[in-house]
């Protein structure tokens, strides 16, 4: 999806918005349900990022394991509008919102794990400053019907030095490949785990995270 072509009316829509009526105070802020509140003993948090192309099941996986209904954080991207406003002679700026879903798992009284289902287009990752900094690792969700979208994602993670595992999401009409064939197709080193999963199932999604943690544990052990 290309921003410029998919949103030709962005500038117009912006101008039509009833900005004056949209003050912050007018919208009541609804916080977490009381059962979703973290105990005061929660002192540390870690994060894992779920990456992959459009519609590969990132949000589904986050929702399957999260203890809270997945939430959405948005970030705005300002960019110069298409064309120049002739009346004013200045370039019109449009601002667009990109959304990212996330969920949460309380691991124990002190430690909380956050899972971020990143936007499908990697060029939006930078909008969230430090999304990958300090992340324990990443899960690359792969749809075998569209393997090619995974190349870019995997390349970006390798560039950033983010350790990751690959989870192959089971769509009914998706071709199945032997793991080693997938490894070759995705050009993955032998140590990177590849697992099958059904992102709709809590246990299956949990097992993917577990695979990542065992992999990270091995890396940590090798590094010391």
């Amino acid at each position: 999806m290309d921003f410029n072509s998919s949103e030709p009316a962005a500038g117009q829509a912006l101008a039509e918005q009833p900005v004056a009526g949209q003050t912050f105070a007018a919208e009541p802020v609804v916080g977490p349900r009381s059962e979703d509140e973290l105990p005061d003993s929660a002192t540390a948090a870690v994060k894992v990022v779920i990456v992959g192309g459009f519609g590969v099941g990132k949000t589904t996986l986050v929702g399957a394991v999260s203890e809270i209904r997945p939430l959405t954080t948005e970030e705005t991207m300002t960019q110069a509008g298409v064309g120049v406003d002739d009346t004013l002679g200045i370039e019109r700026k449009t601002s667009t919102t990109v959304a990212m879903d996330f969920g949460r798992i309380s691991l124990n009284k002190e430690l909380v794990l956050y899972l971020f289902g990143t936007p499908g287009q990697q060029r939006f990752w930078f909008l969230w400053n430090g999304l990958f900094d300090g992340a324990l690792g990443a899960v690359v969700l792969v749809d075998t019907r569209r393997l090619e979208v995974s190349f870019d994602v995997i390349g970006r993670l390798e560039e950033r030095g983010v350790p990751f595992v690959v989870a192959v999401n089971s769509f009914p009409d998706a071709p199945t490949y032997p793991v080693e064939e997938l490894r070759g197709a995705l050009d993955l080193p032998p140590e990177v785990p590849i697992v099958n999963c059904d992102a709709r199932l809590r246990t299956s999604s949990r097992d993917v995270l577990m695979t990542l943690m065992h992999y990270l544990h091995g890396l940590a052990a090798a590094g010391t």
Partner: protein
Amino acid sequence: MSAAGQEWEDESPERLYVITGGRTGAADTFSLDLVTLIVAKTSPRPGAQPEHAAIMRLCHSPLSVAELSAYLKLPVSVVTVLLGDLLADGRVVARAPVPPAELPDRSLIEAVIHGLQQL
């Protein structure tokens, strides 16, 4: 899969500009991560900016920067600026995430594994 219309939404830059007083990014020395946990230390100052007061109310129990952004319906970059003010005033405290080290600590990974086993 989301259609373009669901993925995208126009946001008023003017509104965000007003909330932050035109500032961008955290002026604070300590940088806030998406998963930094924020806890209120006091009650909101009378006459506080509504966004500041809303953060203080939300943070009576620990809440990550990402969750604050979600509940406030404000971009993380804006929330970070607001939190910079509250941190400078000592109205909230930030519990920094673990572990921005190169390789995660083995005992930390073990704690995560143990936690996931309880799921």
